[in-house]
């Protein structure tokens, strides 16, 4: 098997393209790959091939490789610098590893006129500075396209800008806290030594004052957000983590000031450490958040921006889609996306409506049929009257459903916050109790008060803020290694609560596109090979997905030249070979061509009952063979469902496809609950109904029609080869199309939850054990420090245990 030198995809012998490089014959799968290889060689950048690590092999998208990019989309993002210097931010798509980033940077830097080009490894955004006298934006864009990458205009949404600013703010606050705390620790150790070794009073006071000065910014600058949140929370008597931190660190702070003035021992280190450790936890959370944006507005990219307006007596004019309104007459050519919902008036064709139904089976359209904005016009040229303007199309409806679902989605309270909820009252009760008991016992008000406060100081667990974020960070990293991209922190906790799973059918449980399941020979002079040869020779003229399936199965077979090929949308293809009519198509097509279909060797109703399509091949006047085409179930689906049944009680299948096929798939998987022919909003409603009965649903899908359901569900999972829309609406994206990842996800989340629980326990157990010491009045700063240290170490090492989870 020969592999293309550039994209590594296997190439059949009869399709390979060779080129000479340095006296070697190098194989390629297409001219696109060959072109990129040439450029890389001439620029001397062949180390790209040594460095790259691609998980999956894909061509630089064949025909689309040289699709002209609309420059006007980019022009609004150009910023002017001094003189002729201009800058722009561009998102480069198709980057798959560090070598791709390196390649893009190097190619750009070697281009005359480029002053600087820097690509961000994490976000794949390129920041380019160029001299507009030497090179134009179009040339730069073309350069990127020429090496096989797709530049797209990059616009930071407002939400994203705010998020970036918050991250920086958090980092600065954390950094400040760390610096000050490190300095503080030096003095604290001196003081510890001093407490046990009779330090000279003056020195002690000096050191303690310095400790005070260092701690103050930590509490009141780095810890300011916590204080603000606590004040807000107290208004509603709402106790969360911030309350605990503020109460703990402030009480330690003021207690220490009191101690400073009366010659006691200070706890500034406890106070500062609480804030610092919590900030560490928050920072880990912030960086662990995924780079994937939830920008649903990208959905609008599916609708073309321009349409062809038909005016009587003139040529077609190109107008923006936004100015289309009801009654306008538009023309759509084969291969184009339909600009908006319309009714066909002239012509016939087939369209791909997978964005609504999920099914890529073409739908036949003729005069009077409704064509949907955003769907693909496959093989006929048509003229249609606009029904809905662009903001009222079915696609816009889907976008609306997604947005509504998103606004309804609640943010769950994670376990740590729940624990804090009842911990704070307990601590305060214990402190009050101590105060009262001490008062009764010693009759000294100040002493009792101070003892009570010392209970609060010791009881405050500082590694609680690390418990959850650390575990989630390690779990998320592990998940990514296995092929699960988890988009947020609390999603792992959410997954654990799932008790129902809803599957989409096409593309999720099944392979997504039809395949040849069986070939039944009617004319015994033909064999499987020759049938495929004949079929593919005809079908290669069509873009139909069934045609693609037939051509796929006949790769490697030399095809025949068929003359006078006619494509009849919705029925079949016909042509001439050696003066004989060869036809391939459905039952109706055969009848139209006078082929007799009686005395068939099979009960074909049996096949159709199972949801297969039958395609008939004829030569001359007689039938040669019947091809059975259907969408095949993925083998891993069976195993995955079996695994899932062990832990999930309710499994459902919702499909946009017909009932027969869905029934077959459901019975093969042993799933009793399934619904078919569902529109996107019906799927969403189904999920909403289940969830209102207190179930937590996980939705797994891949198409645009799944987007509202993915958002509505408690947790949404999108397949790897899913549409961009599905991936943006989902909480988790699978990087491999293997459904066995789902049981793996479940077991990872159960284990992580257990570890989070253990972490939380360990973070306050040492502190709680030390409470009795404080109640008696024997608290020493070193006890507080020890409790803090031990609990932090335990939390960290325990979290590492997640890495050992399973296969």
């Amino acid at each position: 098997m020969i592999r293309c030198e550039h994209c590594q995809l296997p190439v059949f012998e009869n399709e390979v393209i060779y080129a000479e490089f340095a006296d070697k014959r190098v194989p390629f799968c297409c001219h696109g790959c060959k072109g990129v290889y040439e450029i890389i060689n001439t620029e001397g950048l062949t180390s790209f091939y040594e460095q790259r690590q691609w998980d999956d092999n894909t061509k630089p998208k064949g025909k689309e490789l040289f699709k002209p990019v609309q420059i006007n989309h980019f022009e609004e993002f150009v910023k002017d610098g001094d003189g002729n210097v201009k800058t722009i931010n561009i998102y480069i798509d198709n980057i798959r590893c560090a070598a791709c980033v390196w390649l893009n940077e190097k190619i750009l830097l070697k281009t005359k006129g480029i002053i600087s080009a820097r690509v961000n490894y994490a976000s794949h955004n390129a920041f380019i500075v160029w001299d507009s006298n030497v090179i134009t934006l179009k040339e730069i864009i073309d350069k990127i396209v020429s090496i096989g990458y797709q530049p797209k205009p990059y616009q930071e949404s407002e939400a994203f800008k705010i998020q970036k600013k918050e991250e920086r703010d958090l980092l600065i606050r954390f950094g400040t806290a760390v610096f000050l705390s490190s300095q503080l620790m030096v003095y604290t150790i001196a003081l510890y030594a001093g407490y046990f070794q009779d330090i000279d009073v003056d020195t002690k006071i000096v050191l303690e004052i310095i400790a005070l000065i260092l701690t103050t910014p930590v509490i009141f600058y780095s810890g300011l957000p916590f204080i603000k949140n606590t004040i807000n929370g107290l208004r509603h008597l709402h106790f969360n983590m911030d309350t605990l931190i503020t109460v703990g660190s402030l009480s330690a702070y003021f207690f220490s000031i009191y101690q400073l003035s009366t010659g006691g021992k200070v706890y500034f280190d406890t106070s500062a450490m609480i804030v610092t450790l919590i900030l560490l936890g928050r920072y880990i959370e912030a960086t662990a958040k995924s780079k994937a944006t939830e920008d649903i507005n990208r959905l609008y990219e599916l609708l073309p921006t321009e349409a062809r307006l038909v005016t009587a007596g003139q040529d077609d004019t190109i107008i923006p889609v936004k100015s289309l309104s009801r009654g306008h007459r538009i023309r759509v050519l084969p291969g184009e996306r339909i600009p908006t919902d319309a009714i066909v008036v002239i012509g016939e064709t087939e369209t791909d409506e997978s964005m609504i139904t999920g099914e890529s089976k073409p739908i036949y359209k003729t005069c009077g049929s409704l064509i949907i904005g955003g769907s693909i016009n496959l093989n006929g040229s048509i003229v249609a009257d606009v029904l809905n303007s662009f903001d009222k199309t079915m696609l816009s409806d889907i976008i609306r459903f997604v947005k509504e679902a998103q606004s309804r989605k609640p943010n769950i309270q994670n376990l740590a916050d729940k624990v804090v909820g009842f911990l704070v009252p307990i601590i305060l009760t214990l402190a009050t109790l101590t105060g009262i008991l001490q008062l009764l016992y010693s009759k000294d008000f100040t002493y009792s008060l101070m003892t009570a406060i010392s209970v609060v100081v010791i009881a405050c667990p500082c590694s609680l803020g690390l418990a959850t974020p650390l575990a989630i960070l390690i779990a998320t990293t592990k998940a990514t290694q296995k092929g699960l991209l988890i988009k947020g922190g609390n999603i792992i906790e959410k997954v654990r609560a799932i008790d129902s799973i809803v599957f989409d059918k096409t593309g999720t449980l099944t392979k997504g596109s039809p395949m040849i399941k069986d070939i039944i020979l009617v004319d015994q002079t033909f064999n499987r090979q020759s049938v495929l040869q004949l079929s593919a020779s005809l079908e290669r003229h069509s873009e139909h997905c069934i045609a693609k399936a037939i051509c796929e199965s006949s790769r490697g077979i030399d095809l025949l030249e068929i003359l006078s090929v006619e494509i009849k949308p919705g029925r079949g293809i016909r042509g001439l070979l050696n003066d004989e009519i060869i036809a391939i198509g459905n039952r109706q097509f055969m009848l139209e061509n006078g082929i007799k279909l009686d005395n068939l060797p099979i009960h074909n109703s049996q096949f159709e009952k199972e949801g297969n399509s039958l395609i008939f091949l004829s030569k001359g006047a007689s039938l040669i063979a019947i091809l059975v085409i259907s969408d095949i179930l993925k083998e891993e689906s069976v195993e995955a469902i079996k695994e899932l049944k062990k832990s999930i009680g309710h499994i459902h299948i919702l499909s946009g496809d017909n009932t027969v096929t869905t029934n077959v798939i459901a019975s093969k998987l042993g799933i009793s609950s399934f619904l078919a022919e569902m529109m996107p909003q019906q799927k969403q409603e189904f999920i909403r109904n289940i969830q209102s009965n207190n179930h937590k649903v996980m939705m797994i899908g891949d198409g645009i029609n799944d987007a509202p359901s993915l958002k509505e569900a408690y947790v949404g999972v999108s397949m790897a080869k899913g549409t961009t829309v599905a991936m943006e609406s989902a909480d988790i994206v699978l990087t491999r199309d293997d459904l066995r990842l789902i049981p793996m996800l479940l077991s990872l989340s159960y284990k992580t939850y257990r570890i989070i629980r253990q972490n939380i326990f360990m973070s306050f157990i040492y502190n709680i054990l030390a409470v009795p010491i404080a109640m008696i009045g024997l608290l020493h700063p070193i006890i507080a420090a020890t409790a803090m240290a031990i609990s932090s170490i335990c939390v960290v090492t325990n979290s590492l245990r997640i890495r050992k989870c399973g296969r």
Partner: protein
Amino acid sequence: MWTIVFLIILTIVIGLGAYFLFLWSVKSGQYDDVEGPKYRMMDDD
């Protein structure tokens, strides 16, 4: 006694210096791309 005071002042000055360096590095965007330096380090030029 004065040794200690001198050392304290020295630590504070050096500490502050390091702190301002940190502030500068965050503000000039050096923390925005955390993956990049891993690979750029290995480049030849």
